[in-house]
């Protein structure tokens, strides 16, 4: 536990840096309000609708789902990697079997075109 206290202190000091910069800005900035300044940037055209009203590609969702699958896989790999020296050949074969199951899913996603952004 002792080792984590210095990290907490480090984190608190890190948090204070952006807050201090924002506080300095409060004193230094010059306010000249103008309605044109706070318009959303659209290369000078009048803004038609709220940004969140635009639609975006469903591909982003597919990527998110694929990420969750493979990121959970890496979570299992971390403890395995550290203890491979002790597990020896048995550990390697076991992980190859685990990865092979995932590769089946990967090949399926590849053939279904989930990895192609079009």
């Amino acid at each position, binding site marked *: 536990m002792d080792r984590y*206290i210095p*990290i907490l202190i480090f984190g608190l000091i890190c948090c204070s*840096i952006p*807050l201090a910069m924002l506080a300095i800005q409060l004193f230094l900035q010059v306010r000249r309000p103008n309605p044109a300044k706070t318009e959303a940037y659209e290369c000078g055209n009048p803004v038609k609708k709220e940004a969140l009203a635009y639609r975006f590609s469903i591909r982003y969702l597919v990527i998110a789902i694929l990420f969750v699958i493979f990121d959970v896989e890496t979570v299992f790999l971390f403890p395995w990697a550290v203890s*491979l020296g002790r597990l020896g050949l048995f550990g390697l074969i076991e992980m190859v079997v685990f*990865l092979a199951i995932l590769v089946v899913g990967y090949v399926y996603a590849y053939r279904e075109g989930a990895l192609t952004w079009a």
Partner: protein
Amino acid sequence: MSPELLSWMSPELLNWVVIPAVKTAVILAIVLTIVAYATLLERKVLAYIQARVGPNRAGPKAILQPLADGFKLMSKEDLVPDGAMRFLHLLAPILIMVPALAIFAFIPMGDTTTLFGLLEEPVPIFVADLNVAVLFVIGFAGLGLYGVVLGGWASNSKYSLLGALRSAAQIVSYEVPQALALIGVLVLAGSMSLVRIVEAQREMGVWFAFPGFLAFFIYFVCGVAETNRNPFDLPECESELVNGYFTEYSGVKFALFYMAEYANILVVSCLSTILFLGGWLPPFPSLAVWQHLPSLPLFWFLAKVFVFIFFYIWVRATFPRYRFDQLMGLMWKWMLPLALANLILLALVKLWLLK
């Protein structure tokens, strides 16, 4: 430092609060100075590569340019666009800056130092040596994404929103092969402590960049992609998205996004140095020559980090930008299988060659 001077403090207070706070101040001073001068270095190097002069007005050789920039941005008006979510708009730059700095709590810049004999006993040049440091680093690197997505989401601008979406997809995609490349190093070192990883490279007498050259390549390419830099800077490309997720930011908030980008570059450079180039070890650490020379951990570490930062700028000046479908295809169709194959390869190396 004489012990009498500090005798009024209880040892707990000294060990847990005062010494970490002093170390934090020193490390953050180093980090923020490098971040500030990395912006100047980038502008200068880019200028020379493009046969221009670059900034040369603020002080001799533009040495005061970062200070001038900082002061200018601090004196700018803080604008919040119409219809933006004010609180999230304020929170985003803080959320991106804090994790980028907090990672340096785990990065060892050297083993121990006596400050050229000033201190009686050697002091470690890091805040904490955890046995799970690698997990913390990956976790904090992932946290930076919240700032990017919130910034784009809260700004009520379609360029920002597109930039945030692209950035989320890109960072999330490149995190997987990056983690796999990193696991390759863990296999070789057999530990998740960054100090142990460097020590393992000393014991084996070889930098992990040699057995793990493929992991090194994957890690660095993914690092470039994760910091949204050329040639993978689609979330913030100036020509189509006008800086993407931070289009609508001005003043200090913009400065925080800008600094966070360079802080992240520094994080990737430091981690590449520690994981693959032997951290603070001199080149060819097993040579007998190093026994007779003074060990300069901080010098070797910063020299290697500088090489990486220079490489970042060099890459930016050299390569054109990817298209988004190419970017995603490169990652999911090439990097991921390559990273998996590399992991198995490194496991074989560990079991047979390094026994």
